[in-house]
């Protein structure tokens, strides 16, 4: 640290500046998570909860095959959505960074991809209903073109609808970080690779993909955690036919089985933390961001 510290003031200044954030985060994130962990060891009879220390909730959750099915289903959604969003996000970012040369156009098109982030996810989900429904636009087009004589039922209220909605909602979480790491690639590197005789494909796999990995990793963390934390899309878009870990947890909350819900939540968070740290093992995001 230099003698003249940024911001000036005394040694106490940073503590005062960060105190409001620290207090709110502690009260609204730290202590509530602790409460959920505590709750997972309590007893309940479906009417109210009683302080105790029992492993029974975990035993209940782990002893049923339902839990395994729930986790398998949730991981299946996460895997499919991850692959699709990486492919779409990478392709769109690649186009914006390396093919759109005018900076104004580049920023404009990038913002076009991000604007939906500031609008309602619920509405964006609902907006698929008139397209996918039995009487919807897609079925109508299929029938008019003569491809089918009956409307397809699997479009809406199915796993297909759930995955499609996830991709629609979450691809922008992939585009933003990949775009950022691609935009930092020095054009001279690509030029040098080309001068050394590398083909476009070799430049892509040997230069651009390795240098975009921070963005891909960050986007993957976002997408995986968002899919694994969702209960609403899976409930509405599957028409109640499919379930994820959190939608099952929501059902338990609705039935006032808070401790069981808490135990399930703790397990889910452990799985998510494991997945995130697996991604972080592959790519050291902190080191790469500091570059």
């Amino acid at each position: 640290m230099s003698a003249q510290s940024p911001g000036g003031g005394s040694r106490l200044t940073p503590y005062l500046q960060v105190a409001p954030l620290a207090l709110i985060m502690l009260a609204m994130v730290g202590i509530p998570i602790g409460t959920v962990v505590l709750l997972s060891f309590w007893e309940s009879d479906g009417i109210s909860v009683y302080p105790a220390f029992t492993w029974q909730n975990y035993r209940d959750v782990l002893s049923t095959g339902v839990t395994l099915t729930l986790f398998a289903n949730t991981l299946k959604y996460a895997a499919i959505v991850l692959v699709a969003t990486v492919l779409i996000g990478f392709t769109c970012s690649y186009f914006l960074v390396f093919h759109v040369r005018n900076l104004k156009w580049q920023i404009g098109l990038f913002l076009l991809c991000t604007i939906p982030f500031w609008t309602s996810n619920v509405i964006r989900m609902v907006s698929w209903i008139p397209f996918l429904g039995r009487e919807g636009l897609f079925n109508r087009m299929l029938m008019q073109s003569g491809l089918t004589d009956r409307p397809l039922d699997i479009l809406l209220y199915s796993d297909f609808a759930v995955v499609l909605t996830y991709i629609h909602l979450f691809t922008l979480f992939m585009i933003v970080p990949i775009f950022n790491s691609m935009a930092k690639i020095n054009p001279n590197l690509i030029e040098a690779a080309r001068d050394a005789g590398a083909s476009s494909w070799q430049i892509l796999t040997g230069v651009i993909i390795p240098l975009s990995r921070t963005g891909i990793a960050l986007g993957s963390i976002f997408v995986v955690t968002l899919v694994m934390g969702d209960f609403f899309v899976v409930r509405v878009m599957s028409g109640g036919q499919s379930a994820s870990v959190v939608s099952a947890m929501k059902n338990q909350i609705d039935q006032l089985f808070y401790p069981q819900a808490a135990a399930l939540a703790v397990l889910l968070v452990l799985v998510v933390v494991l997945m995130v740290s697996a991604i972080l093992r592959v790519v050291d995001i902190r080191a790469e961001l500091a570059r």
Partner: protein
Amino acid sequence: MSQSSTRRGMGFYLLAAFFGLFVLFLYGPMLMIFILSFQGPTGGLTFPMRGVSTHWFNDLWTSSRYGDLGGAFRRSLLLGVMAMAITAVVCLFAALGFRRRFWGAGPIFYLSIISLIVPGILLGLGISQLFQLLGLRLAWWLSALGAHLSWTLPFGLLIMFAVLNRFDGSWEEAARDAGARPWQVLGLVTVPILFPGLIAVALFGFTLSYDEMPRSLLTVGGRNTLPIEISNMTTNVTTPALYAIGTVTSAVSFLVIALAFVAIAVIQKQRSRARGRTE
């Protein structure tokens, strides 16, 4: 530059077509419900349009079928404004503080990241049970506001970090050397320079709170916010009124986004003009 700057090959057009399809995928469905919300009184949830009317918009505010939509709308707007103001102020100071090393910086940063990763409904459960244990009553302006801040503050903090990355601390030093007091440095130097970034933080603060649903669900208490009312409507309402409320709430979002963008653009323009004068 070689090849890439001379002529556009097949690759460009293929990628441009892919990008165009993605934008259509992103906005097409939304556009469709905006159109369908002007469905005639006898029209249904899908095309064709049976006439054009504002029937379903009137229905929203006059019919009692949809619960307290007006109240929910007011509460969500108010919550958004509160979350916006708190997010902007708290994140500005926190990010300024994070420029120096201090005890506890790591844990606070990680707590913020954890808040982004944890499922929203889990935090809602935690906050509501915490209130229960403390004997406090859940209320939209307290427990739900707190839940919203757990969502808006980490985003605001990360953006403020990015903004401060490009901020030159020697401006502040120069002001201090010229005898400015800490509050003068903040009000006359730091905040004016960072103002476009602060607008971005405020935009995130408002819109993330205004559209927040999973964290609010268990923390609002008796009076719902608009996203909760809308998500209830997705299962109960089978008329274009659902699309009408979607159009209304999206219009609010787009208005706020446009205001923020225009404000930032105006400031940038003034700055480049000022720079032109001094050169």
